[in-house]
């Protein structure tokens, strides 16, 4: 009993309510026809119901806003908004009221109150209102700590506080994968493709407003998520850009090293920072969330000591007709090399020219261009293989097979038929 009396002694009451977006009221249409037993009764009841859409009562989604019905879930990147109301429940005036709202996370404590000034007086039945906003930046337990201090008319200083605990959950699952456009022609430009799988792991649909890749200073990025048709590109995800719970969507980006970086060494070595994904989504009535991934890092493919890439190759060639390709040989090692080129014929590819010729010395990071001639004796898509480079200093041989493909066609087909 004593305890209960003590409880009554606080003159102020603190109330906190999370302000998620309001929801639209849905009604349940039950209709009948004029000839049915209730006649126009059901129709009239539905017309009188303020929550129905007048003229289209069978439409379920109404216009009436209802306040949030429960705390709901809060996800990383969303904004936590809360109404804090301090009400004078007593019959006497209270002075010097200070309301303080702090948010305790696992790593820090933040002050969320709009003002830290004390309110000089609060009359009975009146209240102090505050709406706080905070963009949630951490996962895990959060505790909203609301502290109220005030002075009674008798001059007694009182203080109390309340804790509100909630969990911040992760809204998205992001997985990334790099594809190096290496073994085909585009390796000339050192393009990298990034595939990002984004999964909605919340329980409500999410409208993906923006999923963009912010490249690091070394790269230019092209988004490959729209199909150009006429003036406007249409999204590859269809008309409606929302993601149902547990749905995953793939975003594709093409990254090209800026010329100044690409040419410096001919190759980008080791681990490079590609950039980060910036994701903005919206849910119910525009509730917004935003996240960024950490810097995405890519291990550049190891080219070994000597890298052989193609600078020029025709896509289609005639059967048994010599054609030219240009290879680029780059010394990726730290030492100077003395290279000998061997050309080995395969079942379909026949090299023209002398095998075993000296290419001379190549210093570190230097490269040389090498025009070669060859022909194919078999039709169809043929793989160019059989180049061997030997470093005479170390007596080490590097093999290059499946460097590129060409389509071999027979030019006489049409005449014969």
């Amino acid at each position, binding site marked *: 009993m004593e305890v209960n009396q003590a409880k009554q002694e606080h003159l102020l009451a603190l109330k906190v309510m999370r302000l998620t977006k309001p929801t639209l009221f849905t009604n349940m249409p039950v209709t009948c026809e004029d000839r049915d037993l209730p006649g126009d009764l059901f129709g009239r009841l539905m017309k009188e119901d303020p929550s129905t859409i007048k003229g289209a009562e069978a439409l379920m989604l109404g216009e009436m806003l209802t306040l949030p019905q429960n705390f709901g879930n809060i996800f990383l990147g969303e904004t936590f908004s809360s109404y804090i109301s301090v009400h004078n429940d007593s019959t006497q005036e209270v002075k010097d009221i200070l309301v303080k709202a702090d948010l305790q996370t696992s790593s820090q404590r933040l002050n969320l109150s709009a003002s830290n000034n004390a309110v000089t007086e609060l009359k009975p039945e009146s209240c102090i209102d505050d709406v706080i906003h905070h963009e949630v930046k*951490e996962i895990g337990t959060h505790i909203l700590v609301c502290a109220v201090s005030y002075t009674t008319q008798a001059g007694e200083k009182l203080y109390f506080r309340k804790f509100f605990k909630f969990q911040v959950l992760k809204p998205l699952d992001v997985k990334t994968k790099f594809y190096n456009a290496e073994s085909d022609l585009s390796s000339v430009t050192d393009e990298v493709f990034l595939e990002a799988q984004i999964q909605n792991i919340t329980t409500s649909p999410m409208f993906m407003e923006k999923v963009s890749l912010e490249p690091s200073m070394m790269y230019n990025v092209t988004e490959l998520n729209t199909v150009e048709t006429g003036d406007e590109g249409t999204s590859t995800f269809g008309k409606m850009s929302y993601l149902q719970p547990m749905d995953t969507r793939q975003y594709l980006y093409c990254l090209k090293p800026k010329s100044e970086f690409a040419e410096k060494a001919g190759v980008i070595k080791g681990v490079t920072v590609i950039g980060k994904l910036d994701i903005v989504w919206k849910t119910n009535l525009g509730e917004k969330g935003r996240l960024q991934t950490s810097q*995405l890092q890519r291990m550049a493919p190891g080219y070994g000591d000597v890298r052989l890439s193609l600078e020029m190759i025709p896509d289609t060639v005639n059967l048994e007709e010599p054609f030219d390709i240009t290879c680029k040989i780059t010394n990726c090692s730290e030492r100077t090399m003395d290279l000998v080129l061997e050309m080995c014929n395969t079942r379909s590819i026949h090299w023209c020219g002398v095998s075993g010729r000296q290419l001379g010395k190549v210093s570190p990071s230097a490269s040389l261009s090498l025009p070669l001639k060859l022909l194919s004796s078999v039709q169809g898509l043929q793989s160019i293989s059989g180049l061997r480079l030997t470093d005479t200093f170390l007596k080490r041989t590097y093999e290059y097979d499946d460097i590129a493909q060409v389509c071999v066609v027979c030019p006489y087909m049409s005449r014969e038929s």
Partner: protein
Amino acid sequence: MDNNETPAQRPVTLDITGAVEVKPSLSAAVIPPEPSLLPSSDVHFQEESIDLGGESFITPEEDSHSMPSESLMDKLNDQMMESVMISDSPNNSEEDDVVPMDNLLEQFEEREEEQAAAVVKETLVAEEKKEVVEEKVDDLIGQDTTEIKIEAVMMQTSPVASSPEEPLENVKQKLTTDDQDVITVSISAVTPEDSTPSSGSPKPEAAALETSSKGTTSKDESIPVCTIFSQGSQPKVQALVPDGFQPTLIKSPSFSSGTGGSTEITPSQLAPLVCQPSPSLSKFFSDSGHVNPATDFFDSFTTSSFISISNPNAESPKSAAPTERQLSASSGSSLPLQQAPVEPALATAPPQPFTQLQAVFSGGDDPFATALNMSEADKRYDAWLPSEETRKVLISMAMQQYSQVFVERERLAMPGLKFDNLQGDAVKDLMVRLMGEQAAMKRQVLTANSVEQSFLGLKQLISTKNWRAAVDLTGRLLTAHGQGYGKAGQPSSHNTDSLQLWFVRLALLTKLSLFQNAEMELEPFGNLDQPDLYYEYYPTVYPGRRGSMVPFSMRVLHAELPQYLGKPQESLDRLHSMRTVCQTILDNLEQGLAEDGSMINLTQENRQASLQLWKSRLSRVLYAVANCLLMMKDYVLAVETYHSIIQYEPQQKVQLLSGIGRIFLQIGDIKTAEKYFLDVEKATLEKGSGTTDTCVLMNRAFIYLSQNNYSDAHSSFAEVLKIDPKNPVANNNAAVCLLYLGRLKESLRQLEGLVQQDPALYLHESVLFNLTTMYELESSRSTQKKQALLESVACREGDSFNTQCLKLV
């Protein structure tokens, strides 16, 4: 349950509290002699902790149940802490009952664990370990201490769930098995194994888990839970197949803390999510584990011992099948028997003699004369296309070959009441409970007894919103027809009136959200295609009349019902077959045939009327399809379907386009919503009338709302009110905006004023819910204010009022 641990933990917490720094800064500003406050046993100092975790709530019963032993100290502490209103659970918001805070938090943990246990049993141990950690935190908060030092513990709890081995394994797999170049972006920094504290044995928790799960099973058995928008529990995050993909750390862009590692979580560590708040009020209400009034009612008519005093006609369900005579004596006299005089005799007759009778009567009929008798309107409204099988039976019926027409019992619809009495008035019960018998005497509503036992009385009950009483009355009238309680499965004949009664009964049950009851009683009707549900089955009673005895609206109801019981796919199936029938009938009409495809010539006038009727029916079915899709959150198809209705109901174009716009707003796609709202503006310009301006303004307000611009949203709603001051939606929405602007008192005043001035418009579930929520936010005396609302409800509303929106329980 944590008796084992608390003694061990306490000293630690005290140590930590000693070491904190933040408190002095606060107290220095406000309460100068802070030490003097604490030691003095004056209990001015209060602390509370409320867990806002998801939709959790605790009933007091559960508390006492799961917390049998507690130290005296704890109890004292707990008593001091009042439970406070928070936005989520109505239970927590009850000012007067003292929910011990420790219990509150622990309950939450238990529930969390329960969930996890349901999803992944094998991870139970990990969960329990985590719980220990959590409890430690709770203990810290639970103390009458001044500060909490939780960082260290928090770190450990941050991987919120499940299997400890998985994440590492995955990463390994990825690294080893993938030949593409995959780069580790982030690896989970914290594994649960490393961080589990050593103290605490899992056993007591396991026991507690059992008790609490028992608690929930009984709760689950509750009743007609409206399952709109219910979502299945989150599927367990599968162990990932090594696909070369790399979990990527995501963080808020402005997050600058250097402790990024601690927040990293691999996908498999994700906690099972708590269900999202549902947009439907009724879901919220039925979610509450409280024994609510609706539950009482349901229990009362399902338990066999219940005998209604107020309804002398109602017999106890034990004496299941009431004799026909008794009932017709009591209520049959006023039952309108518009059908053929043979009907009462036929009602209880077994099927064979009945068909014999038909055979006898049919001999003298002139088919041509009767065909003329059949009114065009009847034909139009009753038209339906039975299934092939049913059609054969009906044709042979028409051939009058009794011996050949043997319809198996299973092929007949043999309905009966599945529950007997639904009497009750939630408003009155609540008044008795809160204000005493005396105050409750003022509550006067019509009951099934106080009206004429006829269709007229039934209509009276419906229009006064006494739907429960109306359901009772339909029960009596159906009992008089021989389809009363326990008659299901027994042969009885149907007529127009009995089916209309069934329709009204089922429609009201649906309106009352008693979906399971409706489903039970609809079950004997099957798919509404039994031969005895067609007029052709009764050539003597309805000579020459053809078509479906089941009203179209009942078919719609039958199709819509499963979606409210969590079976939206079934609803879609039924609705699509209805749609096909409607479409075929329209095609028939357009090809110059009769509705059923026969070659009967229709006059131009009748054809037009029929086309119009069937178009409106088709659009009703399409509305139902779209509504169902919307519930399933299949927005693409829902929008498409709503759009397709415009061609049949061009006068509803504005409403439909606005509705589609709102769907997009709900998804969060504001740009597309704006496009649709622009179309609405164009459409209203075409109409050229000034009356639709409100619609445009309303849409604009919703756009502002979605941009977090509550002040402009408020002024748009206010503009609507300038044009249409009585618009309840704009009034309510303007008040809601005020709350988001931090103007609680104004908002309250506005809503309160509306409810007092125009109760007819504003005693609506949604408005009252908003109002009571604001009362709770405003002051500790919300209960009195809510009771005042209850009184005004008692003066106006019928027994179908949903008292849960007052949050008084």
